[in-house]
């Protein structure tokens, strides 16, 4: 795409920089994975488009009602307590129902009817019942941590809930990403809609709450945790409008037991990967890839990824991505598949194959944002062979692509090196 910019038109450096910055902004494109993720959510829109005037009326009434209810909740004298300054105290639900607290950092906690939460030296711990949290986005490196039994639930900004039910810990996520850790290991990484259930601990119900003076160190789990069962907790599930997906957490090599997953092979495949069972994930993705639609397309690509990254079979992975390309020549992951093939061939030592693919990619995709990376990779392969002439022409392409900056800068450095070598050969 060629551009003509009328402003700023000054000859000074500031105008020149501004023109360049605006041009860069005009050429900014999202990466394919972003587009893919968004498409996965809008491919099947939630409901057919309708535009009836009665909806406006109904919407107005609903909005007014919601506003009245919200105002009531907001103005209720004991609805919200600010507990930022409190370092150690136990909070119970109000006798009338849920209790809302605002903790340090703007974190909102809603203690359910039978919930008990303790603040120990500023750190919250769920001791009984259900507590739901809404955490504003945090600075990197400063996650919000809630303790429950021997687990740490770690978040960087999200809405989620923790419940203790019959001795088992239940965590479910509405927004953002939440991780569940024991003393040493990450046990689960939950995305919106997913939930996790820890093992039932019979003694937990009788265990007295920890002493208020000191926060007890979480006891480490056994080296090999027992396989867990994953049932959406009814207490939490009933509180939500949407059905929760569950995340499987199994002992290494154990079978994935996930009733919901059986209905959604993609979820089951991700769960199998989380549980360290790539064979099962591969089988599920392959089955899914035989269907149609975005899910099948994603699965066809994922087959290659699992083979390459989880099963150490680069040749099979390349074959899988080539099958993807044949099935979806204009697929949304086409560029990703091309790049994966090139990188995998290069890593597995098939320089000829990688160079052929890279040349084809550069010829077919003059506007791709991955152009610099591929041209640099091809340049590196030629340079490794001692073919400086071809390497220079590839680095030249990478330098001309302008971004990503690190690929361009590395290419420029290698180009200079190759040019110096060529000049040296010429002098001899």
């Amino acid at each position, binding site marked *: 795409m*060629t551009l003509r910019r009328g402003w700023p038109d000054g000859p000074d450096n500031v105008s020149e920089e501004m023109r360049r910055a605006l041009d860069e902004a005009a050429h900014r494109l999202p990466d394919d994975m972003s587009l893919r993720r968004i498409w996965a*959510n*809008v491919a099947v829109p939630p409901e057919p488009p309708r535009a009836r005037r009665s909806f406006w009326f109904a919407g107005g009434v609903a909005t007014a009602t919601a506003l009245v209810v919200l105002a009531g909740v907001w103005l209720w004298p004991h609805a919200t307590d600010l507990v930022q300054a409190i370092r150690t105290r136990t909070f119970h639900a109000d006798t009338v129902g849920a209790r809302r607290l605002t903790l340090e950092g703007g974190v909102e906690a809603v203690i359910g009817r039978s919930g008990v939460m303790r603040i120990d030296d500023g750190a919250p711990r769920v001791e009984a019942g259900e507590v739901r949290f809404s955490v504003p986005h945090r600075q990197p490196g400063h996650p919000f941590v809630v303790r429950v039994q021997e687990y740490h639930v770690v978040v960087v900004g999200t809405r989620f809930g923790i419940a203790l039910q019959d001795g088992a810990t239940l965590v479910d996520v509405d927004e953002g990403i939440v991780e569940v850790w024991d003393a040493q290991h990450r046990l689960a990484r939950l995305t919106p809609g997913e939930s996790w259930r820890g093992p039932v601990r019979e003694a937990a119900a009788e265990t007295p709450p920890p002493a208020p003076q000191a926060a007890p160190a979480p006891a480490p789990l056994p080296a090999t945790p027992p396989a867990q069962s994953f049932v959406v907790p009814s207490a939490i599930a009933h509180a939500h409008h949407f059905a929760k997906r569950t995340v499987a957490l199994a002992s290494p090599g154990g079978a994935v037991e996930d009733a919901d997953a059986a209905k959604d092979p993609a979820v089951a495949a991700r769960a199998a990967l989380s549980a360290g069972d790539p064979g099962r994930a591969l089988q599920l993705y392959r089955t899914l890839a035989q269907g149609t639609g975005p899910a099948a397309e994603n699965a066809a690509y994922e087959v290659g990824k699992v083979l390459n990254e989880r099963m150490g079979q680069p040749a099979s992975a390349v074959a899988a991505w080539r099958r993807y390309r044949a099935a979806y020549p204009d697929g949304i992951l086409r560029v990703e598949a091309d790049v994966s093939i090139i990188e995998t061939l290069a890593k597995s030592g098939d320089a000829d194959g990688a160079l052929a693919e890279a040349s084809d990619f550069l010829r077919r995709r003059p506007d791709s944002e991955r152009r610099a990376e591929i041209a640099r990779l091809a340049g590196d392969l030629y340079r490794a062979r001692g073919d400086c002439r071809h390497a220079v022409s590839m680095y030249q392409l990478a330098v001309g692509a302008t971004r990503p900056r690190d690929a361009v800068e590395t290419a420029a450095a290698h180009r200079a090196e190759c040019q110096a070598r060529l000049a040296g050969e010429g002098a001899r």
Partner: protein
Amino acid sequence: MNTPGLIRAVQSSTGPHADLELVTRCRRGDSVAWRGLYDRYAPIVHRFLSAFGVPTEEREDACQEVFVAVYRSLARFRGEARLSTWIYRIAARHAGRIARRRRVRGLLSTLLVREPPPPPTPDPSERSERLQILDEMISKLSPKKRLVLVLFEIEGVPIEEVAKIAGCPENTAWSRLHYARAELMAMAKKRVK
């Protein structure tokens, strides 16, 4: 200067008729048409939201919300405006809502919380320092000036379409653009000093 800031030499080949036909097919539930619409406009919406200052971590969600809103509003598209103008208007409304939400959240955090809200994290994929500085400067403009500047200078939308998207007369759009450019240049010069 009353000339378009950016002229895209390669314009979309679609006209109002093609837009209307695409929308009609989407309304009938034609998934291929919906995919076509998404493929054509998703990168544009994403770029617009980025330039408008929607933080990286909220960008995908915002883009998704825009497309859900587009889908739900398809029945109201009559083809009087260009489809791109219509989609920009929806995207601008969402971007404005996100900016307001962040402002309110920041204000509440200042009032109630000791720890200030973290600044938006720069997109790691956008390694250009120049672009990051531009984004930072644009985010300091008022929402009305920001909208006009982003649409005209970055998106290359003609001023009459910009006025339609911003819901103001053309002269007002020019005036906002003038002041936005002046403020942006002043900020850039201050940085150099």
